[in-house]
């Protein structure tokens, strides 16, 4: 969502404030997620943070595809070879102790890297168990996650976001807005000194917790972070205790961006007493009995929520305890994986094979005394005797075995014609298939089309919890934009293939197209385009299965299946189990055996 332009100066002011608070307590607030494209606003903000942090505080930038060796620390190869004994190298997280790490392109951050960061944030130390080293180094740092995501779905891993106090969005801030009073480094320094002595009253804690509840924030980290921010704010204002305005500020900066629901001002319309409803009511009772301080905090948070967001949230009100965009674990994780290590073998690091340094050194180790004495005998001058003599036959390379993953893309027709008869059955079939995918550890993606668009309900994932949830929430009704849907499926399959996985498309439709690509409603054009899209699908080489969901098998669906060279399967009777078997057969036929990668 893009907040309106009028709010932009206020946005920047808040961002500046957040920078100051971060500089006051980078360790406690744990950091900022900064959503903005590269540009003057982001650069200005980063410069500001650098200028506000003490001179001595390190600021380290972490590139997206950082290796574990550099992130956590590992074996320093050059030093090891020079010294003739293992020498450890410090990782960036240890270097950044007392300062800030800047994560570039955090929206594409691998789940595994995020897990390492959060572990270090939680425990205040980096634990390394790799390359024959066991190190435990205390380090405390703040994180600035630069999020360049454009859509709602592109955001840094939820596990990381949950721990960062500030979620800023600078995408609507223009250059002319970049004007706000800035505190000086001296102010910040004074505030840092005061921070430890700031006290927070019990009612302040209660107010933040109540506000977080009322805003539907499930994680208990949110009020904790808000409390620390309130402390930092009080320190910045040279107060010895947290005041009402500090709490309000903390609520605005920390709680508001995490809100998943509006605190309902009136009781919800009377309905049959269902559990979620009752929950709402108890929330309301809490809201009614709020004392003034809690109201102030809540109002502050509420005022900072852009109106467009609220409309969205109210629509999605049913599913509010869990963040729908949480974790794209499957997708990202697999992009990072180069297959499963399948041992080490002797060989030279050529043709893409990676030298396994530690194993190479291990192979060379037993020969050292022999080789050193031989080298000394040959050479005129004595060489430094601690050097490690590595010969060609010591080289060891890591082998990876890459098992190609299958990603089943379900393209579900949720249009009126299907919804009437078979949507429930189609859902049942998909659920059965999902269970099957679980057994085979396949990934699933879910595309639904109705009205004018095809929507990616679920990017490829292995989390069945999410798959099931998005399927349950799928509404039916509307026209059938079949061509659009097929094109979307082909695009998605392409993306899947680029990650090195094998896509299989499963279309559940009755084959009647009535919306054209341009949104027009001429049936003839829509049908023609659907067939053209089907041919494009065939040309792309995508394996497909078309399940005819119409009450009686129709020639339209059959023709469509022929055009896309898909297996055609009518679903005349409600028998989801038969569908499951068919998909299994199709997927198995395309599944390649384990492919060894040299």
């Amino acid at each position: 969502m893009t907040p309106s332009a009028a709010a932009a100066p206020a946005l920047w002011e808040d961002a500046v404030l957040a920078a100051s608070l971060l500089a006051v307590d980078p360790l406690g607030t744990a950091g900022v997620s900064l959503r903005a494209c590269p540009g003057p606003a982001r650069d200005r903000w980063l410069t500001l943070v650098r200028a506000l942090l003490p001179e001595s505080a390190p600021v380290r930038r972490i590139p997206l595809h950082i290796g574990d060796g550099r992130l956590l620390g590992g074996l320093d190869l050059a030093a090891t070879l020079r010294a003739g004994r293992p020498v450890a190298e410090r990782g960036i997280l240890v270097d950044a102790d007392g300062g800030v790490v800047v994560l570039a392109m955090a929206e594409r951050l691998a789940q595994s890297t995020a897990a390492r960061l959060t572990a270090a944030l939680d425990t205040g130390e980096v634990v390394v168990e790799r390359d024959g080293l066991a190190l435990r180094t205390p380090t405390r740092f703040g994180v600035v996650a630069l999020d360049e995501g454009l859509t709602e779905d592109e955001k840094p891993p939820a596990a990381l976001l949950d721990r960062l106090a500030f979620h800023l969005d600078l995408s609507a801030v223009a250059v002319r807005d970049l004007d706000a009073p800035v505190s000086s480094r001296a102010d910040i320094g004074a505030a840092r000194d005061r921070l430890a002595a700031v006290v927070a009253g019990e009612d302040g804690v209660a107010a933040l917790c109540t506000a977080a509840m009322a805003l539907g924030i499930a994680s208990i980290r949110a009020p904790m972070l808000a409390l620390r921010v309130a402390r930092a704010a009080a320190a910045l204002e040279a107060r010895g205790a947290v005041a009402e305005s500090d709490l309000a500020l903390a609520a605005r900066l920390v709680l508001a961006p995490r809100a998943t629901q509006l605190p309902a001002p009136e009781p919800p319309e009377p309905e049959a007493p269902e559990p979620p409803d009752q929950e709402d009511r108890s929330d309301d009772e809490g809201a009614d009995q709020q004392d003034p301080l809690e109201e102030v905090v809540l109002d502050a948070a509420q005022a900072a929520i852009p109106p467009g967001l609220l409309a969205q949230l109210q629509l999605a009100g049913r599913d509010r305890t869990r963040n729908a965009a949480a974790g794209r674990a499957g997708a990202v994780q697999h992009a990072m994986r180069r297959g499963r290590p399948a041992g080490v073998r002797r060989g030279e690091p050529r043709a893409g094979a990676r030298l396994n340094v530690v194993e190479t050194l291990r192979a060379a180790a037993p020969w050292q005394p022999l080789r050193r004495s031989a080298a000394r005998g040959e050479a005129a001058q004595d060489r430094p005797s601690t050097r490690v003599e590595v010969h060609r036959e010591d080289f060891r390379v890591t082998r990876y075995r890459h098992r190609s993953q299958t990603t089943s893309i379900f393209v579900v027709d949720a249009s009126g014609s299907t919804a009437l008869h078979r949507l429930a059955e189609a859902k049942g079939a998909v659920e059965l298939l999902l269970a099957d995918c679980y057994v085979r550890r396949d990934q699933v993606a879910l595309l639904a089309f109705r009205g004018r668009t095809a929507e990616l309900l679920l990017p490829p994932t292995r989390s069945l919890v999410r798959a099931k949830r998005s399927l349950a929430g799928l509404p039916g009704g509307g026209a059938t934009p079949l061509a659009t849907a097929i094109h979307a499926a082909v695009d998605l399959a392409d993306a899947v293939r680029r990650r090195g996985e094998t896509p299989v498309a499963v279309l559940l439709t009755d084959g009647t197209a009535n919306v054209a690509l341009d949104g027009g409603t001429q049936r003839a054009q829509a049908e023609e385009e659907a067939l053209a899209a089907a041919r494009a699908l065939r040309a792309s080489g995508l394996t497909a299965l078309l399940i005819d969901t119409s009450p009686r098998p129709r020639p339209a669906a059959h023709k469509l299946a022929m055009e896309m060279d898909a297996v055609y399967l009518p679903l005349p009777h409600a028998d989801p189990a038969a569908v499951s078997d068919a998909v299994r057969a199709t997927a198995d036929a395309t599944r390649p055996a384990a492919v060894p990668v040299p």
Partner: protein
Amino acid sequence: MATVFPFSAIVGQDEMKLALLIAAVDPTIGGVLVFGDRGTGKSTAVRAMAALLPRMRAVVHCPYGCEPESVAGLCGVCQPTRKSEAPKSRLVPVPVVDLPLGATEDRVVGALDLERALTRGEKAFEPGLLARAHRGFLYIDEVNLLEDHLVDLLLDVAASGENVVEREGLSVRHPARFVLIGSGNPEEGELRPQLLDRFGMSVEVKTPEDIATRIEVVRRRDAFEGDPEGFAEAWKKEEQKLRRRIVAARKRLPAVAVPDSAMERAAQLCIGLGTDGLRGELTLVRAARAVAAIDNHKEVGDAHFRRVAPSALRHRLRRNPLDDAGSTVRVERGIAEVFGP
């Protein structure tokens, strides 16, 4: 090591705390899996438990921390000397070893000691994390993100209680009996069924929903962060009380009777729920016995089964991952059928 949050100061999360206590009382239970929402204190609880455990006696200079009294299951260092003389021993803290993500295989199983090999040309074995975790706990945070080849390795060792290393010309075997503790968030991916089965108990944690509990959580955490030592000091008495309870329960454990009727009840419950294999029944009975020992009861009864059945059986149901009723609900239904409402 920095001061850790005291175990007894953790608000709520009773099921998780009970499961960890059971594992502390009876390590043969086979480990605890904690799955749940973000920010519910999963890692905090495990680290707190580490500080809570009473110290144990271990052989001096044994790299694996062997038991001084036992004769079986010793490591290669202790085995030859054991018959001739009683070994010197000392009190050491029970190891709770973190298996960090990104750990490499050589560090987990142990490998050739690089330093000695490079500087002295000696072939020596450098024990890894599994050796360090022997007789203690191995904790894997974000267990569902663990790489597959490490999972394979753990499965094998956890099943056999012995780590066999055959690499770089080394041939070493040493005992590695540990309690596996895993935690993670189910939204980030499922766990492999084989690994799931290795955990004796599986606990689901949720963010507390009521406001008073939440305020208390934030308040205590805040107090802890402001003054960790002072906070730990204030809870020291509670901690000691709990530690004494664990020690006492361990002593009582062998004496707790499991009557045939109780065995039958456990079997009924497992049959009713259709759990695979006998591991479910075994864990159920063991966990119930541990609870009876903790509560100072002489005999295992229905009340104990009721408390532990969800954690002991939840992850063993033949699973339809898409069944609307979660496994917990199914177990509760089964309990109501066998033990009455």
